[in-house]
């Protein structure tokens, strides 16, 4: 038992280069900043985050009151203040400047926004979970203002940072997919419903990007999209196995894992196939449906599935190719 616990502790104490977390920070920060700026551009700030009758934020007057409403009142001024705080912190988060403070404040601002607006999207909830994890990570140890400043001051960040935030983010994303799959009771997601779900969503006037019926000629393709979505989401837990089998063992000086199965998984690039399928589905959603930042927010978290050494290797290869 003690040995199992020791292995568990050692696993969560692993270290790695910060590239994957840094790239995730940049992409998540970009998506968040874009979304917040879009809220202002749409003129939605006051409407979204003021309590009725000044806005539609019914959560702002629900007991117990959110902290921002308790301290400042659920007024349009508080809405502007929350938005301003979130925008400044998202920009600092994106560039990795005053990272820890900015990330913590951003997580708090998003949490308050979530209290004001309880009907928000799944992607908002996902970011409310991802932000604190990223705030606790050292995602600013590279590709960031903080890292540059520390280098100038001769106090650079360590080359290796804690890997556990990335591992937890992986678990979170995989659970989200798996949970989405097993919470679907609608037969349209299954063979008995003719895999009609994607086509149905594309016919929903509130979500369709094109007029309903536009893709009637591609109905078979939408059925394939439904089946692929269920396969992708339902098989999400297997990604843990693919990640374990397909890791940069050679680069890290370790033996390959998993014997024949491992060799097969690596040869068939199963991990990359799963990621590619996910990216394709999200891009398909972005093209055919109006779901705001959802597909981009999900894709922004995908760098966590790539080991930082693979990212660095890819970067070096690109630089070499470019120079030659």
């Amino acid at each position: 038992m003690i040995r199992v616990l020791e292995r568990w502790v050692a696993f969560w104490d692993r270290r790695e280069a910060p590239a994957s977390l840094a790239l995730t920070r940049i992409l998540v920060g970009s998506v968040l900043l874009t979304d917040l700026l879009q809220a202002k551009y749409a003129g939605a700030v006051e409407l979204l985050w003021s309590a009725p009758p000044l806005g539609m934020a019914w959560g702002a007057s629900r007991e117990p009151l959110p902290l921002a409403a308790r301290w400042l009142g659920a007024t349009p001024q508080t809405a502007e203040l929350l938005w301003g705080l979130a925008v400044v912190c998202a920009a600092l988060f994106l560039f990795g400047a005053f990272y820890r403070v900015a990330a913590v404040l951003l997580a708090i601002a998003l949490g308050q926004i979530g209290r004001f607006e309880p009907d928000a999207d799944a992607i908002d909830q996902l970011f409310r979970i991802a932000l604190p994890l990223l705030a606790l990570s050292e995602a600013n140890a590279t590709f960031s203002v903080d890292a540059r400043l520390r280098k100038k001051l001769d106090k650079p960040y360590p080359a290796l940072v804690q890997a556990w935030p990335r591992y937890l983010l992986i678990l979170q994303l995989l659970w989200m997919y798996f949970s989405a799959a097993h919470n679907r009771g609608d037969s349209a997601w299954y063979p008995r419903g003719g895999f009609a779900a994607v086509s149905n969503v594309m016919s929903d006037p509130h979500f369709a990007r094109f007029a309903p019926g536009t893709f009637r000629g591609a109905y078979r393709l939408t059925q394939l999209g439904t089946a692929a979505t269920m396969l992708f989401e339902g098989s999400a837990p297997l990604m843990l196995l693919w990640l374990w089998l397909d890791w940069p063992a050679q680069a890290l000086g370790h033996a390959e894992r998993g014997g024949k199965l491992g060799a097969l998984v690596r040869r068939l690039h199963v991990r990359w196939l799963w990621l590619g399928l996910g990216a394709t589905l999200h891009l398909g959603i972005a093209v055919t449906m109006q779901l705001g930042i959802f597909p981009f927010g999900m894709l922004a978290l995908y760098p966590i599935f790539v080991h930082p050494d693979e990212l660095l290797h890819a970067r070096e290869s690109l630089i070499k190719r470019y120079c030659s």
Partner: protein
Amino acid sequence: MWRWARALLIALVIILGLISGFPTPNVQRVARAPAAIRWLVEHMPQAQSALLAPFRFATEDCQIGQRWTLFSTTGGIRYRLEIEARSRRSKRWTLLYRAQDPEHAFMARLLDYRRVRNGWNPSRHGIKQSYDPFAFWISRTILASEPRFDRVRLRMARVQTLEHGEGASELGDFAYEIQHGREVLR
């Protein structure tokens, strides 16, 4: 010591996440299942609530949970928001906004923004709590900026999703109608 504390805390977070996200099937779905399974399904939500009670701050204050329902129902009857205003003089209704209608796109930039749409778009459980305050706000905004109107009406045209990707057809009736007059400006 810190390493151990962190690893145990992570274990706790994972266990709580799994409890929170554990699926609870509809009791009707297991009506024919053995008694033990029915008993389990009936008591699962209570057990989940009891186990998560000490950590309610996470679900309520931080608005997080681990049950993800993304497009869990599709097709069937869907809705299409319409916003109309009534002329003071002729008492005729003018269609200002209709979802996915570029010819009636009054304030479309605002109304189509995903967070705002979330407020007025019905979920699988029906209309959301934000719909009433949204209707009040949009009515007041329209009536304040357009003196020629004396009433604003919001309603959802009921739409039937057609099979085999044929699109959708309007059923000719409406749901979730709300009307506001100039009293909202007081």
